[in-house]
């Protein structure tokens, strides 16, 4: 297999720019925003593998994000070095996905979506009751807090997620997942072990969402324990993926960029009406561009082609007359 230079050079250039970005970003604000962008790309890409490529709608992503944030923070605050704590957090997320996924993914229809939503809500209530307080970074960490390592952590997690998801969807495994999304019966009839591939997609998705949850626990100086479990973490990745383009690698990246950047610009410039305007923009995209922003060029091409075809037909009609 030979790789085209363009396929190597462009990603390498993008990576180089991303690694060098903190040099050009002056002030913690932009770094914070970029960290937030990377976080949203990661969780949306994680959701996309299971929802966009495999067709299994996970509406309970906050449980997997939150459990990892909880485990990571507890272990890290307990004195365990951060990286092992982060991996334990991601592992906790994987274990939770197996516990839920193995029984739930055998079912078809909306049961999986309803089941995951129930898990997210139960997890939220449990954490809110069991951990009612605030978690603070120990004083020594606050004194030496820097955004730079957080930036690189988010970046590495995001790039790993994109690379792994890209490799998976371009492999035979990816084909199997897409076949499940298109028609489970046909996939099963063709010899695809549908439960196996659904569980694999769920585990990979949860692992990366878990890593993002751990990074969240590393990023914030203080937060209420329940905050990584709020339902916002369930719906935002879905929103982002649909804005960008579901079932594509670039969709969650573009969607997250629009979601973070547009929302920020609207919030800072439009005041209290920003939520209304952002909502209107989202409805517009869903109504007129169901394939998301990534489908806009195709839609425009279709529109122009139809227009051209129409005018050609009209000319033909006139000539005949």
């Amino acid at each position: 297999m030979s790789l085209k230079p363009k396929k190597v050079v462009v990603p390498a250039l993008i990576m180089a720019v991303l690694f060098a970005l903190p040099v050009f970003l002056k002030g913690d604000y932009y770094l914070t925003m970029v960290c937030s962008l990377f976080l949203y790309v990661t969780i949306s890409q994680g959701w996309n593998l299971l929802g966009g490529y495999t067709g299994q709608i996970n509406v309970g992503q906050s449980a997997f994000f939150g459990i990892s944030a909880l485990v990571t923070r507890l272990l890290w605050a307990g004195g365990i070095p951060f990286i092992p704590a982060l991996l334990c957090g991601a592992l906790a997320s994987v274990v939770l996905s197996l516990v839920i996924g193995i029984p739930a993914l055998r079912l078809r229809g909306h049961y999986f979506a309803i089941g995951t939503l129930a898990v997210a809500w139960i997890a939220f209530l449990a954490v809110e009751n069991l951990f009612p307080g605030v978690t603070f970074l120990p004083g020594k960490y606050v004194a030496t807090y820097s955004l730079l390592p957080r930036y690189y952590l988010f970046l590495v997690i995001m790039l790993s997620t994109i690379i792994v998801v890209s490799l998976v969807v371009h492999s035979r495994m990816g084909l199997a997942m897409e076949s499940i999304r298109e028609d489970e019966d046909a996939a099963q009839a063709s010899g695809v072990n549908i439960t196996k591939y659904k569980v694999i997609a769920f585990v990979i998705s949860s692992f990366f969402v878990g890593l993002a949850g751990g990074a969240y626990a590393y990023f914030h100086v203080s937060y209420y324990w329940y905050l990584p479990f709020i339902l916002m973490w369930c719906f935002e990745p879905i929103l982002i993926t649909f804005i960008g383009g579901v079932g594509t690698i670039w969709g969650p990246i573009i969607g997250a960029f629009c979601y973070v950047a547009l929302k920020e610009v609207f919030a800072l410039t439009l005041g209290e009406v920003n939520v209304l305007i952002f909502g209107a923009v989202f409805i517009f995209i869903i109504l007129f561009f169901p394939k998301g922003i990534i489908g806009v060029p195709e839609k425009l091409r279709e529109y122009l082609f139809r227009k051209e075809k129409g005018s050609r037909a009209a000319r033909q009609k006139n000539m005949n007359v």
Partner: protein
Amino acid sequence: MRKGKFGIVAGIVCFSLCLMPFVVGQSRAEAPASIKVGASIALTGKFAGGGVDVADGYKIAMKHINEDGGIYVKEYDKKIPIEIIIYDDESDPNKTVARLEKLHSIDKVAAYLGGFSSAMNTAGLAIAEKNKVPWVGVTIAAEGVFSQGFKYTFAPCMFSFMEVTAFFDALDSLPKDQRPKKIANFELQSDWGIECGKYLKKFGAERGYEIALTEKYAGGTSDFSSLIMAAKTGGCDAVFSVPTPPQSMTLIKQMKELAYAPPVTCFIRGPDLSSYWEVMGKDANYILTCGEWTADMKYPGNEKLVTDFRAEKNKEIIGMQVGCGYGAVQVLADAIERAGTLKRDAIRDALTKTDLMTVRGRVTFDERNIGLVPYSLCQWQNGKLEVVTNPDYTTAKVLPAPPWDQR
């Protein structure tokens, strides 16, 4: 000859004296056009009700300070107007972090003012500590947050121990034969709710009250029937809780539906919002709530705040957080003036030494930077929040609640 020398020396001295103002003027740094202070507040989302009140308090305080020429800063030997930059955090603590970073690194504010609600403020004050920017906030009531050894965060507002003290003061103010004997604590599962529960037990034992029932509930709970029935069957004649604002309304509605009318009901949060009476009508009558600030307070400057606010907003009922926000700006402005500079560390040091009479009473800080403010409780009496416990004065006596159909 001697006369000539004297003349030269005198000339030099006079010339130097004439130049002095210019030299001194040159050595003094140029004053900024304004003193920038920043806040990230929930203007949209689930905390917007209180967030808008806090923001209004900040804005009107800024207006009053600027009408007087601004804050005198010794370093520049002049009064400089104050400018408050407010961003909407959309009731999302992640946004609070981003907005405060923007205020710090892009807008270069001299200090932060707090937002609304503990969830937002907890995220905010950690950023203030990280960035070493003084933070003055008013809607945070859990003491635990201030036990982290943070140096830059100050909260001139009532904390859990003050709220519970004020509650017992209210009970003590009732005639002996009308005082409740059994208190039910509906304990919200938050750090604040748990702290209040701890103080209820402690102070209750010290002051001769029995906490007969403690029923726990989560922040998302909307069905309180089991708690209410437990209190009713247990014969509890007083209820204390710190519900979220929507829960405070649901609780009252469900208590009415279940015909549970204890003579004393105290919800620290919820009934203190300006919209409470509008939503609940007469059912709000006799409910006790936090009384940090009311329009009736006789503290200096309060009348001006109330008159101007009513003229500007055309609203009779003013939210409690308007006055609290106003007081926070007063505390910060006073600290900047005493610091004599806009350097953040100097402002922080000045804040620790605060002793100021504000529109909400005298404010000082303890060693944790918790504000020591007058403990105060209010009661809704015919559409008006009356001050029923306060160390300085009261506007009415605590009234025990009659059955629901007589309210």
